[in-house]
């Protein structure tokens, strides 16, 4: 694509495709506004950009100048950000078109997109099921073919998990690879903007554009943008570790079959595959569900109805304003996490919970380092313990929902890059497998992902 007429055609086509799947409730932007904006963007997009004319949807917790940023929450209903996220600015500088904001679990807290204040998003292949979360809207739109790529965000697996459930590619970069400026913070030491795409190539291209140094984010490393590798002929020379803790006795047999098939294919591609151990894995979910809510309780303290966003009652005094705004503006999952987070940071509990969790986190990160230091280049694991579950199935027990993150949270805790790609079907539903790479070595991870993607029969039953 190189001229405005093509970009305009792309813009209109994207709008049409998004309208067609509006039943999924994946896109939160009203269609009229979306169409108008896409057309306007197409006329000013940079023709020499590497993503010229490419429509990219953006998760609702990432600040854009176009459209509202409500983070799937009532407390930011109608909020328009006066600045845009660095990642979004980079997309635009590369000529991409911002194709609306996608539905998500409120503030990124959830694994099914059922915790959005704007209704749940539907799984593109089965409307009774969830697309995963928190980046469910982005995953659904990509899976439904409405956009080739979308930005999501990860704190505990919120890009990879929906990618697995919807049958698309989801990449989480190394922590510090992509600027968090403009990503509405949930768990600051875990958050990263990630990419969902139709293919490894599409997702990687977008990741490459949005990555790189940013003086506005102190946790973003001083590095050039991600370098994209070529598709390798074979995986000769790669050593791939398979951590036994990700293949517990009670793993769903179909998931096991799909994973085993993928591992066999990796071997056939020439990689050396060996079993390894990440012994502190069983504590990862617990560790995550202390650190993430703790940071969230502090990050969400700014939502009080005082300076932006809607107000909920609160005429008596300012404390009443805060309490009713936050009481009514936050949904039940956010409220639970804010309260748990406040609890684990509070005096008397800090040492037993938060400090302990940080130590456990260090042990989990150490597990990975030990394995990588012994000559392993990448790890392969299932992405999720099950394919897409039914809406409502896990809403009664918060911990049951948390356990769907069991294979993904470790990469967030250790700050490592990871990619999920479709590796098969289970009774028609997609299932993903993930590669976890070494810090800032996304290129090696992507090489292996390209090769696996080409080899694996993602549409076949496991």
């Amino acid at each position, binding site marked *: 694509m190189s001229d405005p007429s093509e970009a305009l055609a792309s813009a209109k086509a994207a709008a049409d495709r998004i309208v067609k799947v509006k039943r999924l409730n994946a896109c939160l932007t009203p269609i009229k506004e979306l169409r108008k904006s896409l057309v306007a963007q197409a006329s000013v997009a940079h023709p020499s950009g590497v993503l010229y004319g490419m429509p990219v949807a953006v998760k609702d917790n990432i600040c854009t100048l176009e459209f509202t940023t409500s983070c799937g929450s009532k407390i930011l209903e109608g909020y328009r*950000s006066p*600045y845009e996220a660095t990642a979004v600015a980079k997309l635009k500088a590369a000529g991409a078109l911002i194709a609306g904001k996608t539905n998500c679990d409120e503030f990124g807290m959830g694994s099914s997109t059922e915790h959005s204040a704007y209704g749940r998003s539907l799984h593109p292949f089965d409307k009774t099921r969830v697309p995963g979360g928190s980046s469910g809207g982005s995953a659904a739109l990509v899976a439904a073919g409405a956009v080739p790529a979308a930005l999501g965000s990860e704190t505990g697996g919120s890009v990879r998990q929906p990618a697995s459930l919807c049958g698309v590619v989801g990449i989480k970069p190394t922590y510090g690879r992509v600027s968090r400026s403009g990503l509405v*913070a949930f768990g*600051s030491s875990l958050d990263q903007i990630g990419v969902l795409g139709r293919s490894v190539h599409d997702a990687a291209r977008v990741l490459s554009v949005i990555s790189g140094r940013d003086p506005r984010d102190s946790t973003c490393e001083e590095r050039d943008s991600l370098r994209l590798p070529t598709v390798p002929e074979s995986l000769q020379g790669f050593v791939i570790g398979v951590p036994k803790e990700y293949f517990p006795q009670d793993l769903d047999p179909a998931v096991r079959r799909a994973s085993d098939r993928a591992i066999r294919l990796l071997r056939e591609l020439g990689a050396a595959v060996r079993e390894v151990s990440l012994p502190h894995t069983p504590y990862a979910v617990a560790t995550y569900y202390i650190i993430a809510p703790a940071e969230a309780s*502090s990050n969400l303290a700014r939502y009080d109805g*005082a300076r932006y966003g809607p107000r909920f009652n609160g005429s008596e005094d300012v404390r009443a304003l*805060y309490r009713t705004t936050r009481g009514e503006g936050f949904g039940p999952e956010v409220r639970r996490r804010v309260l748990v987070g406040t609890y684990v*940071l509070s005096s008397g509990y800090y040492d037993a919970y938060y400090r302990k969790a940080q130590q456990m986190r260090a042990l989990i990160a150490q597990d990975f380092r030990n394995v990588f230091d012994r000559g392993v280049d990448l790890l392969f694991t299932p992405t999720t313990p099950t394919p897409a579950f039914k809406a409502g199935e896990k809403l009664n027990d918060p911990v049951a929902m948390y356990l769907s993150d069991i294979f993904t949270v470790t990469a967030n805790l250790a700050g490592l890059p990871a990619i999920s790609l479709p590796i098969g079907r289970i009774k028609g539903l997609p299932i993903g497998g993930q590669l976890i790479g070494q810090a800032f070595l996304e290129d090696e991870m992507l090489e292996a992902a390209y090769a696996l993607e080409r080899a694996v029969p993602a549409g076949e039953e496991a």
Partner: protein
Amino acid sequence: MAGAWETVIGLETHVQLRTLSKMFCGCSTAFGAPPNTNVCPVCLGLPGALPVPNEQALKLAVRAALGVGCTVHPRSVFARKNYFYPDLPKGYQISQFEQPLATNGSLSYLSPDRGIATATIQRLHVEEDAGKSLHDRFPKQTAIDLNRCGVPLIEIVTGPDFRSPHEARSYLLTLKQVLEYAGISDCDMEKGSLRVDANVSVRRAGETALGTKTEVKNINSFAYVEKALTVERDRQIAVLEGGGTVAPQTMLYDSKTNSVRPQRSKEESHDYRYFPDPDLPPLVLTEEFIAEQQTLLPELPAKKRERFVEKYALSVTDAAVLTADRAVADYYEAVVHAGAEPKTAANWVMTEVLADAKDHGDGLRVPPGALANLIGLVRGGTVSHQAAKRVFAEVAERGGEPRNVAEALGVMQVGDAGVLARWVSEVLAAHPAEVTRYKTGETKLVQFFLGQVMKASRGKADPKLAQRVLEEKLAS
């Protein structure tokens, strides 16, 4: 009554650092801008905005820490202090907690009761300021201005070292002086660039355990520091003498009524839930960074005072006056360097120069060299001290060389022996009766003759010399 009790006071001082931009964003720190005009996503606490620390703020903080004798830690950590308040947009303040920038310092000050006393500086850390809440601007509403939000601060915490409100005030003035000398801050309590909260408790004289302390806030000037602490101390003593116990609470000082009242709050004491700020990697300072700030520390007031006493043979009090302000100290030394006699120069600076600066608010108007010249003229008898003050005022207002100004004013004194002798002869010749009386023992009459000589010379005679010539002539 106060004699049976010992007062124990500790101070927490917040000082704004003299930087151009805020601690974590590029907004201006300039005072007095229209409300909410020096704001951005970071200091407004907008969703998604992240902090990036200001290098100069860290430099000044390190310099301040060195200036109060602290150990600067090469590695320290930013921490979030979580609480809700209208002027705190993020719902937390970025500060430091478990690993602060500096600890273990000390500052000597002059105590009225104990002579030179030493305050222990437990810690000095960096943090960001909050905005301003105005409760009386609109009815039933609080108005919030976030211009000040994010301005860099250092917090300096002493141990429970002060034994009287006067000591506390003395320490504060000394601290202010050190920070001003080092160029850290303008330490203006009225403008809010220096704020102080105090912890106050009392105990029976001789006891070692500390009594229950209260926190005193809302002290808005150095003068009020002493008043507020006195009022609170007296209140605590009255409570205890009445058989009650001191409740650990926060007291707000009201300068209008010179009283304290408890800060009404149904909340239990704040649980700030400090944790390391995940948006900011650790603060790591190289040896060079710290060493550079050490070299940028000027000679501090105490040292300068000691040096003045030694070098210029001044009294401790005079040296203290001259070194109170760094600009004045530098001025004084320039005057001496230009040739003035140190003690005379000291008197001139402490009286005429400082008075002029205060009255006209235009700084030290007479150039050091000019003052040195003027002092020379007085010492040489060319101008009387009285007349010199007039010359000084003239030079301050309209400039000029002192000698020329003295001539123009017609105050150049005559010290020429010949001319003086002529006047003396004239006067003695005109008053023979008095001469006789003088020679028979009424030596007091020399003043009368001197008066006549001054009259004859229309005030131009150098009175000291004239008196000598008179006495010589009368003796012969």
